[in-house]
């Protein structure tokens, strides 16, 4: 039995607190008829209990007790819906600065980011912070939803102003595809249904955009990268000498018979077999999870990487990173020691240098005040205890990313993108 092959688009919301992110997601789900009757009844009852006049669509994603008490989003909510064209995974993230780490969580795997801006307030610091994060994460497409147009009489002038402000800020960032849409999440203008009140706007509705944006895959199909997760050894008579390397292809296309090189040993061999979830397969590419068997008996274990002899990842111990710092109780310590996770490796590192702190408002690289507190973005160099097999984040999101962990608390204190 076969199902129509559906493409999966992951998108995230971003933008300052109260600008209407959750309401927009609720509206998108409601107008595209993706809400179940019992879900609708539940939020209707909850809205009435809260004394709200209308059904509060933000309650579809703001499901935690404390979120409902405070009327803000605290942590990412994931929602799913599909149209005949695509399947969508939505991450609705918090705008409150205190929860920036949760915004990064939702955004790290997105193909598209919706940046919501309250038309009355325009581009504020938190809008800029999220735009910077989206650009660091290399989210390929941004949609700036200029929201609450109902509160500014659907004024084209105000729309243009916000549009220009954002554009001039984004020009300084590494963002190539930005679309602007005037919307009202509350009333539903230009979300699923085209608004009659913005006749001056000729672009797509949000749903049209999401269904049609070209996601020329996020994956790198050129450079073979296969981080080994584990070794599969059945220890039974039928598969006596079986030794397979399990992993998820992080880049490139691996084919049976291909010559490969192993990191860190540098030994070369040939792929003898690729075992996929449905049996043997001829080739493997991202994001497939497979098991690779090779011709020679080479010692390989978790953390090693399979590449091609003429196209290796960089083997490095001194690594330059852009980081977003999450810890509320401690700032980044120069010469401090941390644990680092990268692909399937875990190592320790020392912070060798803090190069600069990025000023969110001006994008100025501050080399004087280099105290990195919660939610700050900085460029640093770390030295790891063991070599990592890395690529620049812009070349490969999987082999180009790390997380940094404070070993005293076990908390994840930073996300890092390799330069």
């Amino acid at each position, binding site marked *: 039995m076969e199902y129509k092959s*559906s493409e999966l688009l992951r998108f995230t919301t971003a933008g300052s607190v109260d600008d209407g992110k959750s309401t927009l997601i609720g509206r998108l789900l409601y107008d595209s008829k993706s809400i179940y009757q019992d879900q609708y009844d539940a939020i209707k009852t909850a809205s009435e209990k809260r004394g709200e006049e209308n059904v509060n669509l933000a309650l579809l994603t703001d499901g*935690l007790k404390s979120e409902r008490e405070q009327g803000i989003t605290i942590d*990412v909510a994931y929602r799913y819906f599909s149209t005949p064209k695509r399947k969508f995974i939505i991450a609705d993230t918090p705008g409150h600065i205190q929860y920036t780490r949760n915004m990064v969580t939702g955004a790290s795997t997105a193909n598209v980011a919706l940046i919501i801006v309250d038309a009355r307030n325009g581009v504020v610091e938190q809008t800029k912070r999220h735009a910077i994060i989206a650009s660091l994460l290399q989210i390929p497409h941004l949609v700036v939803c200029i929201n609450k147009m109902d509160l500014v009489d659907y004024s084209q002038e105000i729309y243009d102003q916000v549009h220009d402000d954002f554009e001039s800020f984004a020009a300084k960032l590494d963002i190539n595809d930005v679309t602007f849409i005037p919307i009202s999440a509350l009333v539903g203008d230009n979300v699923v249904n085209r608004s009659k009140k913005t006749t001056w706007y000729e672009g797509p509705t949000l749903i049209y955009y999401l269904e049609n944006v070209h996601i020329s895959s996020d994956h790198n199909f050129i450079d073979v990268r296969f981080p080994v*997760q584990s070794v599969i050894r*059945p*220890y039974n008579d039928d598969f006596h000498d079986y030794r397979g390397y399990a992993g998820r292809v992080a880049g490139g296309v691996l084919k049976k018979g291909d010559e490969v090189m192993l990191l860190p040993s540098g030994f070369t061999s040939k792929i003898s077999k690729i075992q996929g979830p449905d049996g043997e397969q001829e080739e493997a590419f991202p994001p497939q999870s497979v098991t690779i068997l090779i011709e020679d008996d080479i010692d390989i274990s978790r953390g090693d990487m399979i590449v091609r002899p003429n196209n290796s990842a960089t083997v490095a111990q001194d690594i330059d990173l852009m980081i977003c710092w999450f810890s509320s109780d401690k700032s980044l310590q120069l010469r401090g020691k941390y644990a680092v996770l*990268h692909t399937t490796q875990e190592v320790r590192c020392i912070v060798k240098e803090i190069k600069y702190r990025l000023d969110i408002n001006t994008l100025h690289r501050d080399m004087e005040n280099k105290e990195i507190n919660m939610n700050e973005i900085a460029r640093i160099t770390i030295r790891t205890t063991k070599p990592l097999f890395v690529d620049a984040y812009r070349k490969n999101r999987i082999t180009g990313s790390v997380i940094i962990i404070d070993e005293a608390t076990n908390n*994840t204190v930073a996300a890092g993108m390799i330069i």
Partner: protein
Amino acid sequence: MSYHINHLKELESESIFILREVAAKFENPVLMFSGGKDSILMVHLAYKAFYPAKIPFPLLHVDTGHNFPETIKYRDDLVEKLGLKLIVGSVEEGIKNGLVTEEKGFNAMRNGLQTAILLDELEKGKFDAALGGARRDEEKARAKERFFSHRDEFGQWDPKNQRPELWNLFNNKHQFGEHFRVFPISNWTELDVWQYLAVEQVELPSLYFSHKRKVFKRDGTLLADCEYINKRPEEEVFEEVVRCRTIGDMTCTGVWKSDAATIEDIIKEVSTTRMTERGGRTDDKRSETSMEDRKKHGYF
């Protein structure tokens, strides 16, 4: 370039990746098995993830003693077929030896008692990771879950203070006595699960398909008539053609009027229904944040 896999294959690959991470990063993981389709999917994915080796962790079933007999039979057959180890945490035993106290009254259910038994089993087995088949599309508190979800030494979830989770880099560091819940099928929807089970031709318990059953109505939901539920005098038992959309304890799992006799029928039904699958779960209806409250205390 035409390298492209469809969404079911992408979800499968993501889940396999996570199952393998768990096996590699934790010392002593266990898979929580309820007998429902999501647990069955988990076992199926785990089988693929480690093939041709055996699934490298045992199954843990918290048995309320109020399960549909079909569930128990299915479970035992599966364990036998795959040569797995099964651990059964028994609510019945827990009540006998005073670990938990039975609820009383008309809506009495053992669903809440499962948590204490589960935590007890996790502690006894020194498990540092418990794999669960919960999905984010099921319920609003579950929509907030991480793949790797930290639990403190009391097994509690702190939804206001979850660790960030970036890309595919999972921080599983924890103190002694703490553990993780891991949810490899977080991103699957109910429809995805059914479509995948259909494509893979996975055998399923008969409860999911329409059958005749003695039922009665309570608060707008049909419940299976069984010895474990105290009926009110006015609650009349009648026969109906029904099926289960989720399978849990008999006392809280609603059954649905349905003619869906094959998996294709189910897919058709699920893709047009206006109700969520947990819409018939009386355990979720106890309050607005009933799932969140239970999860905070360590529920699945």
